[in-house]
């Protein structure tokens, strides 16, 4: 474990009468790239603003190293923030924006000039020093914001969805650039995003959050391969989540069949959630001995690298990602291999995710109520 640099202890935050965080505990190691990942409204930005000092928690404490900083105002904290909309100073040019923090601290002009030039070079904005920030593109403004924050040599950099306003290609470039910068300066980055791909590709540690609670903390590989509950499994990547039974250690029953499993410790005949990733399912003929379940194809979407096929198996909609194509209406067999089966304990999220009748909860609800209406009409 790395030496902790930020520790949040039993934090509770209420915003506008709503309890956003409750009993929130998190330790961030020095030099780590930590991502807070979760849907909007999960409290991830609140965590960031609490670290930055813009929110004083109702109870609980914030520690910087060993030192308690709960009541230290933002301008006295050794952390800097990259704001979602960059928040550059419109009345200052690029140079003065980057120099802002150093001027406040009363650094010498010579040192300011050297640092600003170094920063401009690091974020690939050489020669842009005298430009007005209004004339810059989104990506360039983003770089100025990064340079402005790093010029203060913070111990921790907080990034609040900094890439959400950029287009896809630029996002990818900035992702790798941010990662590179983090490795070069060697400081802690706390990155907030709702984009799971971004979180997986950049972080050392991913903190998955929902409803103000940490659902799982782990490396990107851990949270993808070993999700702790249905929420994590669904939020990170695509997942088919089925009801299963842990017959005994290393043996799970799902979809009417028993599979060898790598998981243990659930007890015997315990109800569990079973995750099967869409890319781990093969299409086979229904009569093949490899077919574990069979169903009817209800939709096929071409995604470039693969097809996304939705298969209705006795009312449960599976998602399959495969390079083999199928036609809507085909009856196909699905082959699962024991390696691909991940078992999770039942949680409050069981049953809310994992069926591909719809992709989002919102559409699911809409569809459900529409169906109810139809039923009532009939």
């Amino acid at each position, binding site marked *: 474990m790395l030496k902790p640099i930020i520790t949040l202890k039993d934090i509770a935050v209420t915003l506008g009468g709503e309890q956003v965080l409750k009993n929130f505990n998190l330790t961030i190691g020095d030099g780590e790239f930590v991502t807070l990942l979760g849907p909007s409204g999960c409290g991830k930005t609140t965590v960031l603003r609490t670290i*930055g*000092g*813009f929110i004083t928690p109702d109870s609980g404490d914030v520690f910087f190293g060993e030192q308690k900083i709960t009541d230290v*105002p*933002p*301008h*006295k904290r050794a*952390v*800097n*923030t990259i*704001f*979602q*909309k960059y*928040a*550059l*100073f*419109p*009345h200052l040019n690029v140079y003065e924006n980057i120099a*802002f*923090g150093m*001027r*406040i*601290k009363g650094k010498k002009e010579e040192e300011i000039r050297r640092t600003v030039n170094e920063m401009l070079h690091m974020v690939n904005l050489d020669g842009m020093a005298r430009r*007005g920030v*209004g004339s810059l593109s989104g990506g360039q403004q983003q770089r100025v914001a990064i340079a*402005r*924050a790093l010029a*203060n040599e913070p111990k921790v950099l907080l990034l609040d969805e900094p890439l959400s306003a950029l287009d896809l290609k630029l996002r990818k470039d900035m992702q790798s650039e941010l990662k590179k910068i983090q490795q070069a300066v060697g400081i802690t980055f706390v990155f907030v995003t709702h984009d799971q791909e971004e979180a997986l590709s950049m972080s050392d540690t991913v903190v998955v959050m929902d409803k103000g609670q940490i659902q799982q903390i782990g490396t990107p590989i851990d949270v993808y391969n070993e999700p702790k509950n249905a929420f994590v499994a669904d939020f990170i990547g695509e997942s088919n989540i089925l009801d299963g039974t842990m017959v005994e250690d290393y043996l799970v029953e799902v979809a009417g069949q028993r599979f060898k499993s790598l998981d243990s410790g659930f007890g015997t005949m315990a109800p569990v959630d079973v995750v099967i990733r869409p890319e781990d399912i093969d299409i086979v003929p229904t009569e093949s001995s490899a077919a574990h379940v069979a169903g009817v194809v209800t939709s096929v979407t071409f995604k470039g690298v693969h097809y996304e096929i939705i298969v209705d198996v006795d009312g449960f909609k599976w998602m399959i990602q495969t390079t083999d194509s199928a036609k809507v209406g085909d009856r196909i067999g699905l082959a699962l291999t024991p390696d691909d089966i991940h078992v999770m304990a039942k949680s409050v999220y069981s049953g809310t995710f994992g069926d591909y009748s719809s992709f989002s909860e919102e559409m699911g609800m809409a569809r459900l109520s529409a169906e109810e209406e139809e039923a009532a009409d009939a």
Partner: protein
Amino acid sequence: MRNKLICAPYTVWMTLFIIVPMGLVAFFAFTDRSGAFTLHNIAQVGQYSNVFLRSIWLGAIATAVSLLLGYPLAYIIAKANPRQQSVLVMLVMLPMWMNFLLRTYAWMTLLEDNGLLNALFTAIGLPRFHMINTAGAVVLGMVYNYIPYMILPLYSVLTKIDPSVIEAAQDLGADSRKVFLKVVFPMSMPGVISGITMVFVPAVSTFIISKMLGGGGNLLIGDLIDMQFLGSAYNPNLGSAISLVLMVMILICMGIMNQFDDGEEVGGGMLL
């Protein structure tokens, strides 16, 4: 083509009531009573330089006082919650709903030697103060009447400042004093400029305020012009010449002011 048609009434209006009168002012300024060209009127304006100076001086003081009083208030209003904001803005505007003359008359009765304020002072054992017919009374009248024009553009600019920019400044180490000096105030410059313009211009050219609160000793350009058209010293040609010189001077002042504005953003003047 359609656009032109829609514009037509405005074009006609502007020509009739703005361009033509200005042309007439210029015409009268450069002619004598018989209509012959002359520079005599313009040359005569020079002898009133003390009136010009006094007008500019009192106007400048009134503008500075309005800015010093108006900025904190605009800042407080901008920081208040939305419901309080609309009430406070209404309170700022409220005096403007009352007739300008009436408001100035009210100040007369307040400031007179035997007025309400002096009655109050004597009642609590203070000596009487001579307030009416002083330059101070004129400045007071100007500030009272024109301060809403300072507050509103400032308020409008201040509410538009993105709170995350202020947070960014705090984040970079600025305490509240530095946040104000380095971020809020510079970012509110467009509002400051339009506020100054909108107070200074009417204050310099006012005549009612000086006439009613300043007595005979505080003659301003406005009074001078008034006298040339309606008063004893009837001379519309000279009046026009003075107006023209005043206009040029105000244009120069505004030109200088706009140098301070980087012109990136059109300020809060849009509100009015």
